[in-house]
């Protein structure tokens, strides 16, 4: 493969924390100007990977080449080309929004006039003009998030790392942010977006890597990931009550279909033929299981994710919400 137009080349990257294999031998490339999604549940290793790529963590093994510069030995080598929006809003609480942005720009050697101009522009774009002269410590969670993103892009990086940028902010702000990410993408910024929002990844990303337990389990364009399920039919069933040999009985009866059993008394039926619902419902009722819902679904990226990872898609969402509340 021609690697000359790659802005990120990661090969066999690994990192352990004692017994935990946080990142386990992953490899991927991101083309120049591409928006690459890193999709995975809590603890998958997204943040650890980003930290290694940006110089905040040292890999146990593997190579990282950013914009043609080998950063495996010297993590500082490409830092002038990258921007990072960490998962935590970590600006200076005692500085105002405007001061924070100017300070971050100064770290990249941007002169006074230019950084003040850029800071004002970004505060305006992020709807933070009113709060520009208030201390960051007093900002709301969403405002903090927005300013953290502004701080990550003020020096116009060639490669941008976004770690869950839309977590913890309201719907309207999240939407505005996605538009902004799309704009940066259009302007040619190479973006690596770590997220657990499947729709967000599907909407924004050119390509997506599914990462689970430190491993990349699939990596392709959204189109190709979905293609696998083209012409297939899916049914989603929720039921009350349980029966130990529910799987056995269903497989015996509907040999051409395949079933995947998820948490919370739900399962998914997959078939290459159109699925007729009634026989399945009847079969369950014969076992004494009440069907509360059975609906046909068009496969989305979420279904692909479920199929590939064996994880229930909304576990990611639920975990995250719990975390958000705990904070």
């Amino acid at each position: 493969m021609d690697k000359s137009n790659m802005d990120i080349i990661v090969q066999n990257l690994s990192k352990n924390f004692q017994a935990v294999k946080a990142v386990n031998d992953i490899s991927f490339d991101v083309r120049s100007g591409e928006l690459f999604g890193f999709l995975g549940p809590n603890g998958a290793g997204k943040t650890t990977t980003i930290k290694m790529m940006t110089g905040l963590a040292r890999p146990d093994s593997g190579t990282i080449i950013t914009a043609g510069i080998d950063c495996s030995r010297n993590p500082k080598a490409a830092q002038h080309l990258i921007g990072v929006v960490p998962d935590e809003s970590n600006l200076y609480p005692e500085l105002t929004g405007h001061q924070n942005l100017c300070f971050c720009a100064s770290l990249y050697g941007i002169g006074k006039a230019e950084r003040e101009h850029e800071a004002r522009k970004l505060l305006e774009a992020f709807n933070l003009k009113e709060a520009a002269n208030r201390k960051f410590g007093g900002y709301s969670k969403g405002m903090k998030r927005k300013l953290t993103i502004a701080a990550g892009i003020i020096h116009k990086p060639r490669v941008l790392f976004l770690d869950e940028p839309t977590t913890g902010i309201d719907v309207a702000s999240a939407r505005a942010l996605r538009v902004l990410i799309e704009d940066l993408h259009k302007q040619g910024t190479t973006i690596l977006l770590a997220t657990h929002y499947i729709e967000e990844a599907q909407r924004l990303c050119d390509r997506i890597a599914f990462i689970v337990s430190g491993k990349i389990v699939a990596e392709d364009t959204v189109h190709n990931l979905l293609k696998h399920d083209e012409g297939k039919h899916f049914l989603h069933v929720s039921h009350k009550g349980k029966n130990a040999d529910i799987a056995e009985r269903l497989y015996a009866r509907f040999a051409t279909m395949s079933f995947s059993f998820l948490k919370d008394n739900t399962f998914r039926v997959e078939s290459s033929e159109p699925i007729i619902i009634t026989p399945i419902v009847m079969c369950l009722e014969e076992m004494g299981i009440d069907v509360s819902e059975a609906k046909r679904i068009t496969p989305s990226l979420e279904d692909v994710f479920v199929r590939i990872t064996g994880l229930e898609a909304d576990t990611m969402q639920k975990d995250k919400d719990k975390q958000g509340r705990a904070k």
Partner: protein
Amino acid sequence: MKKWIAFWNILLKDMRTYYLKPPNINWGIIFPLAWTGMFLIRSGSGLDSIPALLPGLMAISILFGTTSMLAVTVTFEKKNSSFDRLLLAPISFDLLMLAKTSGAILFGIVNALIPILMASFIADIYVSSWPLLILAVFLIAVVSTFLGLLIAVAVSEVFEAQTFSNFFRFPMIFLCGLFLPVSKLPIFIRPLSYALPLTYGVDIMQGLVRGGNFMSIPISFAVLTAFCILIFGLSKHFIRKRWIT
């Protein structure tokens, strides 16, 4: 050029947000005043003893203005992970550490000047070489600040940074000849005095203010400089190991 913009702004930010805050400025004035008052009263010898007290006072002002200030501010920034921003900046570790320490060093130097100014108002102070005295003050500030850096690397909580600083500072007051000459210390403790950088700094100042040094001034300068380099190197080594894990 670009990296100096970063250096200057890190320094400026620390000055504004930490060192020039009113509580710190008060601390710099009240502390030496209180110590001077205490010693004058205790010794009962009046203003004549000021030149003898001055070097110790200057050393203590520097020590208390730098070590814990740096340890606390760096630990605080580590804790709320804003320090990551500095680690992400395209400047070398050396320059970053120098930028972070410069603020505390300047603060320490200013703290040392306060006792001199106050003393020169109330007593006749004769200094044999001002440039050498300023160089000594500078090196003591550097070595105390770097000690704070080393403490910042060793701890992860702000309160630990504070306690740990005191753990070093208070023994140093007694071991480094600030108010009690090293020659009056029990012989088995003296090796400890010679292992602490402040001993050499204080001896230089004693020599310059009243000719009371017991080691050669050039040698003391050399040892003090060596301590600065050693502690900086050690801090850098641990920072690489502990902060980029």
